[in-house]
């Protein structure tokens, strides 16, 4: 079991013929993900060569691709100028999970795209996220599959490589994962901590959750309140950015401390006040998860 995806997930790749799109399509197929098609306007009718001689049909539009393949998920690798439009196209075509990897999508574009996806009942993950990895099931996005191993821990994070770090540490310590989700570093993301915590709570295979936050916004605080009120499973936290100065954007568009609430200190306080144990450094996550599972 896992959250949002499983072996039956049928995936389309929007921007399959681009540099990143083609590279990661091969990686996803190699991991075992059912990539049923790709979309690149003007290349409809062509075929994408996957690993092991696998042929993936290419379509001009999501509408055609969904009609032909019965896909229920898509992953977006198109350039920032077209990413919001690609999200809306996917939602309009009836896709229920849209994973937007693209970084640098204008925020105002996303105000409309998120509203549109909500209107159409589609879940968006991201944008500017590494995607999600259901261990032994489907890999949607760019999380490196080899660092994960099956087990009882759910991982949710606003970061990419910091997630790899945490998953790597867990795996090395023999603590496997159900699903690892990178929710993305943008200010406006489609799926937040609470959505993931709620899904992990419902997932019978998940026994503990690692939640990796960072400075900016108040999502972690709200997630902490949710964990306290609505979760029976233990949550272990980590917050990056203790040393980040206020008012400066730390890489991620969403990682900026504006006002007192967005600091790492405030977030750690909120997590601890809700009964979540917080790791002081990434390496401490392992011990805290072990303790939680004991």
């Amino acid at each position, binding site marked *: 079991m896992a959250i949002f995806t499983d072996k039956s997930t049928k995936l389309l790749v929007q921007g399959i013929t681009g540099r990143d799109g083609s590279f990661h399509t091969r990686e996803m197929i190699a991991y075992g993900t059912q990539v049923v098609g790709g979309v690149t306007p003007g290349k409809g009718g062509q075929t994408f060569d996957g690993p092991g001689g696998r042929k993936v049909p290419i379509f001009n539009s999501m509408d055609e691709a969904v009609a032909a393949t019965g896909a229920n998920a898509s992953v977006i690798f198109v350039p920032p100028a077209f990413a919001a439009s690609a999200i809306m196209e996917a939602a309009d075509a009836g896709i229920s999970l849209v994973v937007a990897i693209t970084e640098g999508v204008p925020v105002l574009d996303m105000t409309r795209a998120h509203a549109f996806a909500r209107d159409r009942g589609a879940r968006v993950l991201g944008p500017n996220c590494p995607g999600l990895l259901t261990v032994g099931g489907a890999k949607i996005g760019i999380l490196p599959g080899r660092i994960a191993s099956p087990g009882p821990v759910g991982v949710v994070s606003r970061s990419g490589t910091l997630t790899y770090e945490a998953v790597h540490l867990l795996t090395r310590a023999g603590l496997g994962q159900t699903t690892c989700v990178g929710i993305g570093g943008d200010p406006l993301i489609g799926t937040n901590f609470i959505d993931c915590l709620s899904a992990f709570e419902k997932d019978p295979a998940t026994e503990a959750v690692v939640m990796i936050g*960072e400075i900016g916004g*108040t999502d972690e605080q709200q997630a902490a309140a949710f964990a306290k009120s609505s979760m029976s499973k233990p949550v272990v936290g980590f917050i990056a950015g203790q040393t980040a100065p206020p008012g400066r954007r730390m890489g991620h568009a969403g990682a900026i401390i504006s006002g007192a609430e967005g600091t790492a200190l405030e977030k750690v306080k909120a997590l601890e006040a809700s009964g979540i144990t917080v790791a*002081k450094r990434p390496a401490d996550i392992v011990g805290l998860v072990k303790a939680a599972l004991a």
Partner: protein
Amino acid sequence: MDLHEYQAKELFRAAGIPVPPGEVATTPAEAEKLAAKFGGTVVVKAQVHSGGRGKAGGVKLAKTPAEARAHAEKILGMEIKGLTVRKVLVAPGEQIATEAYVGVLIDRAKQAPVFIVSAAGGIDIETVAKETPEKVRKLVVDPRYGLLPHQAYWLANFLYDDEGLIKQASKIMSQLYDCFVSNGASMAEINPMITTPSGEVKAIDAKMSIDDNELFRRPEVAKMRDTEAEPPSEALARTAGLSFVKLDGNVGCCVNGAGLAMATMDLVKYYGGSPANFLDIGGSSNPDKVVAALQIITSDPNVKAILFNIFGGITRCDDVANGILEAMKRIDIKPPIVIRLTGTNEEVALEILAKAGFFAYTSMDEVVEKAVQLASA
């Protein structure tokens, strides 16, 4: 990207918002000339990307051109919160009856633009919102409809009782929203929005930030970037496609990924050190980016040790290793470098580095501890 007051006012004027005249001077003589041109009392305002200009002495009234010159003399070159003032705005003094605050920004939770208005203008809105929330009215704009006329009226009606003022302010709200959206802003503020004794509503200060991700489609706004207003290292980083923020420690950090970069800085502190910077080389692993990163880090004389923390995913460890070696050839790097590489093509990378006489760690804790030791040695 932050705009200067005078730039934000240009965009406001283009949107139809009533903004009194005003021009920019870069020398005291120019300021004097402008004061003479406007006549009467003028205000001389420092143009820096910072709040609190008034308190810092960066905003002064001048009754004569000579006085304007004298003020400009003091303000130009002044440092406000670490930023050097290179321009002043000279504008006629306005008769002020009341001051209000009007702002639009992005509400992360509602995923939409939000208006914040208060009749307590000219002051810090965050303080007002926290201490006296009843003095603030907020309105989340549904991006599917934009700001609707009745909503603009509702905001304006919170500020004024007089129908004439409400109508003018309603119009300004709509214009500000259009200005915000059409310029791809992440924040736009009129503080204060004043009323004059004769019953006019005007924007006498303007603040605007543009979403960096919008600049590619708005070249005319992108041109407004004041590269002089940012530290040279950050300008260089931006050109090279790196995310960089200068800090005041001595451990230079070069990391892939923003979260991991922050966690690395935090770990430097955990081990008793102090990070010299935030630097994310991003997902691509072009060796040139690594070279640029090392150029930027080594240009900081405080840096006593340089630490690489790379978790290869899209980023290939061998590319980073090659970049480091390339940089060693091209630049004279004084501080010691410690490297942690793991993930994609790790083995190849370790071999490349070993050949060049480098030892590479695979644990983040080890490499950070080592870097802190070296920096404090």
